[in-house]
């Protein structure tokens, strides 16, 4: 089937797939979380490549910018910040039967999905419900923009709520607890007297790094 595609397309697909899978296995198999993060970047990049290959140029850009640029950086930041970058001994698995079962499940699930694909046992849906993806005058960016502001207007607005929560959540979580953190056995006790000072909370729309940013200041001050 690959042969029926043009050589370039095939090459790009194979290249992208290799990066993606290599990165993915890298994430899973890296003992060092930092390495894992970097491997993740590879995967994300590979996905972006395949996006482009499928004429999703805008998404490819967003993929690289948001994912690789922001999210992975955030990961790295937290890894460094918490100092949890110790090596993980992948050879041992404290939970019995975890790995064999995981492998078995993966094989089973994958077998199902892939078998469906290879057998061609799936019918795909109707064409062009929201709007054509190809051959648009303004390219995929305009098509996507049109879709987002018409058909997907409400979801688009709803993402605002999502971001608000992200911000508030990060703030709440990052705030230092005012009292001790009792273990389960001595849970309870008197609430500490001092009230935590409320963090200044901006009404930022998308400042996804706001929370940790504040945190950094505090931690450093300590």
């Amino acid at each position, binding site marked *: 089937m690959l042969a029926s595609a043009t050589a370039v397309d095939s090459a790009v697909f194979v290249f992208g797939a290799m990066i993606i899978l290599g990165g993915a296995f890298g994430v899973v198999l890296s003992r060092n979380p930092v390495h894992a993060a970097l491997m993740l970047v590879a995967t994300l990049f590979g996905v972006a490549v395949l996006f482009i290959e499928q004429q999703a140029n805008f998404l490819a850009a967003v993929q690289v910018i948001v994912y690789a640029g922001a999210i992975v950086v955030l990961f790295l930041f937290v890894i460094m910040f918490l100092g949890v970058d110790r090596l993980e001994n992948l050879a041992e698995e404290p939970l019995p039967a975890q790995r064999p079962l995981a492998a078995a499940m993966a094989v089973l699930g994958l077998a199902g*999905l892939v078998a*469906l694909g290879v057998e*061609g*046992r*799936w*019918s*795909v*849906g*109707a*064409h*062009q*419900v*929201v*709007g054509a993806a190809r051959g648009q*005058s303004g390219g995929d960016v305009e098509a996507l923009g*049109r879709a987002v*502001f*018409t*058909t*997907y*207007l*409400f*979801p688009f607005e*709803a*993402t*605002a*709520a*999502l971001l*608000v*929560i*992200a911000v*508030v*959540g990060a*703030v*709440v*979580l990052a*705030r*230092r*607890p*005012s*009292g*001790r*953190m*009792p*273990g*389960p056995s001595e*849970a*309870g*006790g*008197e*609430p*500490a007297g001092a*009230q*935590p*000072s*409320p963090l*200044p*909370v*901006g*009404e930022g729309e998308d400042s996804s790094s706001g929370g940790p940013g504040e945190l950094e200041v505090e931690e450093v001050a300590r």
Partner: protein
Amino acid sequence: MTELFAAAGHLAIPRISYLSIMPVLILLGGGVGLLGISALWPRQLPPSAGTAVGVLVAAAALVASLVQWVDVSNHGPHVAIAGAVVQDGFSVLISMLVSISVLLALFVSDTWLKRERVGGPELQVLMLVSASGAVIMGEANDLIVVFLGLEIMSIALYVLAAFNARRQESGEAGLKYFVLGSFSSAVFVYGIALVYGATGTSNLPQIADYLARNVLLHQGLLLAGVALLLVGFAFKVAAVPFHLWTPDVYQGAPTPVTGFMAAIAKAGGFAALLRVFVSSFGLLRSDWQPAVWLVAVLTLVLGSVVALVQRDVKRMLAYSSINHAGFVLLGLQAATARGVEAAAYYLFTYSFMVVGSFAVITLVAGPGDAAHDLENYRGLSRRSPWLALSLTVLLLSQAGVPFTTGFLAKLEVVSAAVGAGSDALAVIAMVSAAIAAFFYLRVVFTMYSGAPATAGAHVDGGGGMPAELPRPSGALLLAADVSVAQAPTAVSVLGEQGTGQPIPSGAVVAISLCVAVTVLFGVWPAPLTSFAHLARLIIQ
């Protein structure tokens, strides 16, 4: 839809029917507004103020839902905003349920916040925003909107679960919830992708329409997507075997949050689940019904059986909530209008029971929110009789004792199941209810027994002595009306006599309301059942 694209280059923004999303807007706007107020407030915003604003917001959302209801009654159900949301009886019922739940939960958390002194209005904000997510799920008419609602609700809940930074359990609960929640979200998204691929759209009516018009040569893709969607939903509503997070999270989360979570997450999850499966995948019901049947059985049995051996009351109620999820699944499995109605009714009544129960648990837990062992409930009837009585009513209602809403809810779902020919499932459900009754009764019994029971003195020939008198000190039936009627004075009545500490009025209001609804509509079911009867999906 095509007319949108008629004029190339000109963007035809769809008309926004603000009424359709009014509850969402109110909850969301209220949350953000509260955030703003607290930021602008010169000092720490007192919890009462946060509660007040939150309650107002919730009440406004409730009013908005009522307006929606009038609208639906007058003009019939309709879709809005480019078909992304739907306004029908079912969605209105869900948004009312969510509004009321968040209102009650705010009352409860007010008490908790004051006692634990864990800071500002973020709790209320998160609750409001989370509630908005649940409302979105209820009115979502597109898989992606479902997903977004689910995420809005869940992400807020992750944070809420971890809200009490002083308790390790809270953090652990939050993280576990988050890891597993995101994992299930990923599965869910993958499911969306497959369904999208199989049908070419993510819009629910369009999916139904596509399935109605086309005979799929191979259903593999579609059914795989359906399975994965089911996994995502089942996770949210804590159906076995996707329930594993539930006990840990319920136990670890701050108690008011647990109540809130139990009510909201179930409501939102089931709302979307019912809509997606019954209206979009209705034609596939013969395919997914057996799966749901199995899941429901597992859920019913496991929920009741494992709860038997719990000593932590919160954890026990977590398992009980799993059991309840099984009951709601009966409504889904029926996949009929009656089933949807029954499920809606069940969710509606359950939210009162569960919020009320956790309100009492919040109070009993005491400072530090840690006293959740069954032993902590021993003799509660003496320390604060009305509290014990209220919990008794709520637990009995959960057990399905007659003349409570809990019974009618079970009756409704069982009716739906039987009506759809799932008699065996109905029987299993009722048997599980009987098992469940045991652990509810155990709590009740513990509350009403003073000293450790005189064990071993079995009457093998009249050797037994008449029991010392740990006697229930009130009549169950009355609790509701009494506590409502006496709400102003109830503060002192409810007061823990041992400590002389009055119970905050917030919790009193919440508990009274929950008990009142549970009993009132148990005795006089007509209004609520008629109301639930309106919970119709736009397409079935």
